[in-house]
């Protein structure tokens, strides 16, 4: 397919369709590779912005993540979760690795910024994208006490260390670890039993 013919809205699995793209990407389908950028670019970019030191760093991370994604597209198995979750898992890995590497380099190149304050904290919010796993997770997370939601958000989305979370929420470090572990285990258990979530919601 040449560039002129490229229109992801018209191909199966294109931007307008919600069919999985990665199997086609694994076959080097040109339209699918480009559609992948359109479909997952905003997600990867948003994750990278929040877990990167600068805009430039986030842009580099997005490039690396997409290369990873295209190269490993054949690993995607829809039986183990949605494509969106596969993409975000891969993106998280890459971003965490970059944090580790970048911080090691920065620590010797420049002083730490002295701009940290107590956190105003984000929490679960509505997504335009629908994904059954994610919807379920959001429902489960919303059932957690607000401070637990905050701790999970700070840890997963913002990349805060346990110590930083402890500082911001004025919790003992051990409490932070316990809350995170309990919250995620609860998520895992409820994700395996969606009927429990529905029952809890019905009871409200």
């Amino acid at each position, binding site marked *: 397919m040449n560039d002129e013919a490229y229109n992801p809205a018209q191909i199966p699995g294109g931007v307008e369709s919600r069919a999985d793209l990665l199997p086609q990407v694994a076959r080097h389908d040109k339209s699918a590779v480009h559609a992948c950028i*359109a479909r997952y670019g905003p997600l990867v970019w948003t994750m990278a912005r929040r877990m990167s030191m600068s805009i430039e760093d986030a842009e580099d991370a997005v490039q690396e993540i997409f290369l990873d994604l295209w190269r490993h597209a*054949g690993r995607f198995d829809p039986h183990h979760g949605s494509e969106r979750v596969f993409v975000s898992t891969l993106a998280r890995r890459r971003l965490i690795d970059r944090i580790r590497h970048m911080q090691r380099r920065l620590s010797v190149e420049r002083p730490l910024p002295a701009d940290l304050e107590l956190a105003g904290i984000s929490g679960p919010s509505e997504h335009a994208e629908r994904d059954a796993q994610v919807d379920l997770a959001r429902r489960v997370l919303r059932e957690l006490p607000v401070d637990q939601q905050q701790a999970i958000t700070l840890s997963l989305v913002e990349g805060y260390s346990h110590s930083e979370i402890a500082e911001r929420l004025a919790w003992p470090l051990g409490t932070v670890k316990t809350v995170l572990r309990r919250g995620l285990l609860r998520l895992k258990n409820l994700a395996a039993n969606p009927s429990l979530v529905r029952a809890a919601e019905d009871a409200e």
Partner: protein
Amino acid sequence: MSAREDMRRLDELAVSKLLDTHSAEEAIEYRALLDEYPTFRESAVEELLAVAHLACLPTCEELPPRLRSSLEASAAKFLDQPQPAPTAPVSTMPRREPRIAPWVAWSGWLTAAAACLFAIVLGLRPPRIIQAPPMVRTVEVRRPTPPDAATATRPPPPQAPAAPDLAAERRAFLATHPHVIERAFRPGGDPTGARVQGDVVWDEASQRGYLRFVNLQRNEPNSEVYQLWIFDGERDQRYPIDGGVFDIRHGATETIVPIRAQLAVKVPLAFAVTVERPGGVVVSDRSRVAALASVT
């Protein structure tokens, strides 16, 4: 222990490992259990964290045109490479090298946090932000698209869904939510909002609302953005709720911004718009308040 208890313990230890809370004893126990249950998918727990991450993530921001263009170029290079032999999916994720605790990388921030806490305890104004920290938040999706010469030579971008008519959305919202709070904005002291006019409408039940501005100065997204903060009577006033970041493309014409509160707002006291660095901030130093609407 029964196999069921073992699996539960494996889940616990896998979560603990991915959160980097493993003690030395737990690490040994985990390895032993993995040897005993080789079919256990650690990657399933990693995927769980990704699901939770997605659930907590605010609305996604559009790719900057320049980055999009660059990705399209990378895609073309990737497609030029020979295609590998097809393989059946063997795992949901590629293998990775052993991880070192990622949070270790963040430990240095603790020093700065402690210094800042100390300053707050002493009643000092927190220092101005001098370097973008990694925990910036970006939620506004209606970001303007600057002209980009590079786009002229690349394939036409995918057709984006039509921009919603926010004025119509707001009207419909008001028609269907008779109990909204409606308050006028006034200038907050920063020159960007010296002539600002507008209002905020907020519905407590649905936790939805809209901002409307005229004469709020146009911002340059690469330099600064506007960020909404909602002060809640049931929360510590030092930490208002982040209502999302947004841009003003044409200050002289009406701009409507949907509110994206990151937490439930229980008792709204005030809505404040500050000027912040690109992406927004976790906590504003409130040095540049562009507009303010008090509820009480």
